[in-house]
């Protein structure tokens, strides 16, 4: 029984006042506003938003169980795979497959990223509208360069060459996986040009970066103007 002596579904804002789960059911606009206020006030108390240690530990164990092994056993297997080196691919077929996949293999050496592509004579060229790149990657093609431009968190822009750094095949934007795939040799790059994975004897370098800027409503990239540079 409620303190008022009749049974009814508690208002969601009342439930939050008690640090209780929000009861299901429709709410009107007024209650929605009251609930927003209650949520804000509830979060304002000292240490109100810190999780229970039991919860943190319980979820850690649950995720560990998903990997099919005790969390403490993982370190040993990781160490084994590191020692196995190039042979780890064969191990992956066995019982430690999950670990092999999740640990992932460091190539013998990772080439340094290419420096920014700076044309000998260049001009800023619009490649997209500012609203087109909002938190996404878009491709562009000009007479000299194909590439991709991405807006990262905080409106930070990154533009990369669309040619694979291995043999120059034109990369394809994989929107589902949010990466740039090379159709030639099964190599993929992040939208910022970092190599995600490859199937080559040696890791290719990162994609060349292009200089990019926001100019009003336009996204512009510094591109070659078309004249071949003079021989020194």
């Amino acid at each position: 029984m409620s303190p008022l002596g009749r049974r009814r579904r508690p208002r969601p804002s009342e439930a939050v006042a008690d640090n209780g789960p929000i009861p299901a059911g429709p709410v009107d606009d007024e209650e929605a506003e009251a609930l927003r206020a209650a949520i804000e006030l509830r979060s304002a108390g000292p240490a109100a938003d810190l999780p229970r240690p039991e919860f943190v530990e319980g979820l850690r164990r649950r995720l560990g169980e998903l990997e099919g092994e005790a969390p403490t056993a993982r370190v040993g297997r990781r160490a084994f795979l590191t020692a196995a080196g190039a042979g780890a691919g064969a191990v992956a077929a066995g019982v430690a497959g999950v670990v092999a996949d999740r640990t992932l293999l460091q190539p013998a050496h990772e080439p340094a990223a290419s420096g920014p592509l700076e044309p000998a004579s260049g001009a800023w060229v619009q490649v997209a509208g500012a609203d087109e790149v909002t938190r996404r990657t878009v491709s562009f093609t000009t007479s000299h360069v194909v590439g991709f431009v991405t807006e990262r968190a905080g409106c930070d822009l990154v533009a990369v060459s669309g040619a694979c750094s291995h043999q120059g095949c034109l990369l394809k934007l994989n929107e589902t996986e949010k990466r740039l795939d090379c159709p030639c040799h099964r190599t993929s790059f992040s939208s910022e040009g970092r190599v995600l994975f490859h199937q080559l004897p040696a890791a290719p370098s990162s994609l060349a970066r292009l200089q990019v800027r926001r100019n009003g409503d336009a996204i512009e990239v510094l591109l070659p103007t078309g004249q071949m540079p003079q021989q020194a």
Partner: protein
Amino acid sequence: MAERGRGRAAGGGSGPAGRPLHVVRAGDAYADWEELYADNVVRLYRLLYSKVGNRVDAEDLTTEVFLAAYGPLRLEASRGEVRAYLSQTARTVLASFWRRRLGKEITGIDLDAAEEFLERPPPDGYAAKRAQRILAVLPARSRRILELRFLERRSLRDSADAMGITVGNAKVLQHRALRMAAQVREDES
């Protein structure tokens, strides 16, 4: 789960020529899932608590986000990529929660703000100043009931006793005070 993790993490298994597929880790990638979890669980919980205002739902949502992220999230990703993925997942999970629970979106997650929160979590009690600003403009009795119930986390009965009123009156007072606080928030925004 093992099969799912394998396919995603390796980008689809060995290639047509049987050559091994090398995955390149970001320079600041997490060493393992446990490190990723330890670095993000408290931050993610705090973010979600600020959106639902109660422990049970915040725990459920945090669990849901990690379970959803477990399969697709690649350990070779940079920390920034991990935070972006967790933020995106949290946004989807929270929106779905409100649709199921109340049929109306009460709070949402802004991706930029969420990534910022996960990267540089605000100090404990960061929301207290704003709450105090709201409470400061309320009439004394309304302010008092909300302080007792929300900031001091006293029960309705305790709060009623502290104010010398009945539990029923405390409940009505609390409801009216919350509506006034909501109005203040609306005026501020």
